[in-house]
């Protein structure tokens, strides 16, 4: 009897203790979904004339995005799906605390898609503000880092129309690989690599229909990737424009999809566009007699997308000619980017230093400290091997006959 009783009471005690323990903890890390202010995008600006920064966050309003749900009562109403708020502080945490004073929910960083930095702040250096995003467990290192021409705040208040949530629209700009996009983790890696320059995509406000802007009373509310912001030692030093950005992407082996347009071999005013679908870039540093030279080999393949000229793409000779034009076109873009980086910005944004480091670790030890001075003088040789694989659904241009009749 007694044995059974004590066993029973032992289990009862364990049960009661565990119940008590569970209730005493009070679910300390519990976060109800309704208590979360999910930050989708964050912008940081310098407050002119003070040492404060201004943090602007775009917070999603989950209820408002849930349109079309019966009983939700929000369907069709013109509620904005996001709430944009900003606060100032000397550090981001201070600003966040002030934000919490006007936000009914707790600021939650885990789903932040991108971080956009104001131009002014970027020029003064971004290392101080990045610490918060690397240290905290919530913000992800996978967020995109971007620089705004002007203030970051205006990018966050823009209202791109294609996506319901503006931050998502801005984040998704990177999806098509049309522009140069950098993740926070890669940016930081570039910043801390000695001698290397860092890049971030450059954003600008624009209108959906080009040329139609302020005169119509329309505020530009779309966001566009206009190029690349170049950093040296965490400070913004300059920008690459659209073409130079393409060159940068070729040199970094980043082009996965893109269009190359070349003049028609036969009739020079016509143009041919080629859809790039595969490309590979090899950076090979070489040291001969103490002289460093960097060879870049680009292999690329593409499909014929558009042809205005009369060239007969079924002829191997024509294809060969197109290949060469294509190669020279790509090389030209690379040269533009190289020139800008080497002479104007004097910053190694291509990661050549790292390539040298990998190939010649011993020599790099000497080179490392004067790489910034060395980089502008390094000769770079770009070889492009371009191939057309498919000519689309047509081989001969169908308008060729008309043109031959005309002449």
């Amino acid at each position: 009897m007694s044995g059974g009783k004590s066993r029973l009471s032992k289990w009862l005690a364990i049960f009661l203790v565990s119940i008590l323990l569970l209730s005493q903890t009070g679910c300390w890390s519990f976060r109800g979904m309704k208590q979360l202010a999910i930050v989708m995008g964050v912008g940081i600006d310098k407050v002119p004339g003070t040492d404060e920064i201004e943090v602007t966050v775009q917070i999603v309003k989950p209820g408002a995005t849930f349109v079309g749900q019966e009983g939700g009562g929000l369907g069709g109403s013109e509620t904005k799906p996001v709430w944009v708020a900003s606060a100032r502080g000397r550090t981001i945490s201070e600003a966040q605390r002030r934000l919490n004073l006007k936000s009914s929910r707790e600021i939650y960083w885990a789903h932040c898609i991108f971080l956009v930095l104001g131009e002014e702040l970027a020029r003064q250096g971004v290392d101080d503000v990045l610490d918060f995003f690397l240290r905290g467990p919530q913000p992800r290192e996978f967020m995109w880092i971007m620089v705004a021409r002007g203030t970051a705040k205006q990018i966050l208040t823009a209202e791109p129309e294609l996506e319901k949530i503006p931050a998502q629209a801005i984040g998704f700009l990177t999806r098509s690989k049309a522009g140069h996009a950098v993740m926070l983790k890669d940016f930081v890696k570039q910043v801390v690599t000695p001698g290397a320059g860092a890049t971030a995509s450059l954003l600008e406000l624009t209108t959906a229909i080009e040329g139609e802007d302020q005169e119509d009373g329309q505020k530009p509310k779309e966001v566009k990737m206009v190029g690349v912001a170049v950093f040296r030692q965490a400070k913004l030093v300059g920008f690459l424009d659209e073409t130079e950005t393409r060159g940068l992407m070729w040199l970094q082996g980043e082009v996965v999809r893109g269009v190359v347009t070349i003049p028609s071999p036969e009739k020079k005013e016509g143009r041919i566009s080629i859809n790039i679908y595969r490309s590979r870039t090899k950076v090979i540093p070489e040291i001969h007699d103490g002289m460093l030279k960097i060879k870049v080999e680009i292999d690329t393949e593409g499909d014929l997308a558009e042809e205005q000229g009369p060239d007969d793409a079924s002829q191997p000779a024509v294809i060969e000619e197109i290949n060469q034009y294509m190669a020279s076109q790509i090389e030209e873009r690379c040269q533009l980017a190289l020139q800008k980086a080497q002479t104007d910005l004097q910053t190694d944004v291509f990661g050549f230093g790292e390539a040298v480091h990998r190939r010649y670790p011993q020599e790099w030890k000497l080179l490392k400290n004067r790489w910034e001075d060395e980089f502008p003088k390094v000769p770079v040789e770009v070889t492009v091997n371009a191939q057309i694989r498919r000519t689309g659904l047509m081989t001969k241009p169908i308008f060729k006959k008309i043109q031959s009749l005309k002449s």
Partner: protein
Amino acid sequence: MFGFFRILKKAVTYSSRGQSKQKQRTADPGQPEQQALSKSLPTNLRQIKEILAGCADVVYREFVIAQKDEIRAVLIYVDGMIDKGQASFQIMKTLMMDISMVEEGERINPHNVLETVVERALTIHQLEQYHNLPDVINGILDGDIALLIDGYATALLCGARAWESRSVEEPTSESVVRGPREGFVETLRTNITQVRRRIKSPDLKVMMLKIGRYTRTDVALMYIRGIADEKLVAEVKSRLQQVQVDGVLESGYLEELIEDRPGSIFAQIKRTERPDKACADLLEGKVAILVDGTPFAMTVPLLFTAELQSAEDYYERYYYGSAIRMVRFLAMVLALTLSSVYIAIVSFHQEMLPTPLLIRVAGQREAVPLPVIMETILMEMVFEILREAGVRLPRQVGQAVSIVGGLVMGDAAVRAGLVAPTTVIVVALSGISSFAIAGYSAAISIRLLRFPMMVAGGTLGLFGVMAVIIAIFIHLASLRSFGVPYLSPVAPLTLRDLKDATNRAPWWAMRTRPRVIGYRNPQRQAPNLKPGRPAEQSQKQKTASASHRYRRQRGE
């Protein structure tokens, strides 16, 4: 509590000790005391009537054998348990009228009447002689016809049992598309026959036991000699013999009295309604326990993997059999973890959701008043209520319950903003998943375990979910079913037996029996049974010679 049982057990063993070891139907206490029959019919009749006083369903039919000598006799039986035609024609007509044909050679007299009746007159195929009063009483209550003749201290028990019983029907709890449609029924004799008909071997042994002081339920223990482990058979038998209860109305009574770990939430004895499944288990070396009045056979030992296996896996093509087992496995994982992981992620780990999904889920939660843990647990309870209501009600009404309860209520709850649609999906999916587990008892255990999982998920997050899962695994790994590790062949790992665990190997590859069960006779079939095209002569020959060698080894 346990002490009380111990005292009871002691008392029982004491009282049953010292009883005569001669042929007797029962050794249970509470039965009429051992007493020999008297030679005088009126004395016997009086005593029997005394014992069976108040049993209005017992019929006494007194008559006279062989009119010249006026030998009195009496038939005693329970009305409704015998075949009345046999009683009238095979017994009474024979003894009262046809016996005169026997009389031609030698006159029937009080001294030879018993021999004559047994050897020449009674055309009853099953006839036994008893000399003790309790045996006679028990025989009568079992459904035999007792024939007592004046002048003999012997009762003849004529087997003419016949009572209303359900005919063999399709098993409802384990239906298959391809496979036999026969299921076990409530009559033990029919069930044993169904097994015997499938295994026509002298090695199929049937051991009969009677369990239950009042019900005296027939229990059959079946095994195949040479495959089943003798130690296992002895263990099962001794555990069954230790059971001293008032009655066994369903095999579930016995199940709880003979399993290894009665405190476990998991069943350690397999139950099946399908004779083919029971036979398959016997052929693996398991022992089957059939209980009268129960249309289920119990087989031991049970491995957990068996809960994910259906009879059809073995009848359909092995690709399908393997794929559907994976589906069941997935269903089991979903049934156990889905709701708790959902609670944990929504309350603690929002960063684990993809952003669009998070926004969607958060949007749904905006309008919902309850925290997710309350909501999910309540919905799971509602689901359990609906399921229970549907099971208990007649089939036609049951469907209405599921429609009204599931469709109307679920939809209305979502529209009213009381419950988030995601919760409804999660609860419905985890509920449906629990139905996809083949073993009914495993499904019940998993449905129950879902609730502690949800509490852990709601209080400690994924950490809590993991803790409960680990606890379950520790328990499962320590569990034994009649000494056999429950998680075998996964833990301890037997690579060879994985062929029939999570997937089903083709039959020609099922060469060996499960190691932990059929190790005494591991080879199940001849090697190289994989069929091929007729053109592959050499392969064919190889197969033929191999199977010939196998047969020679077996001495066939």
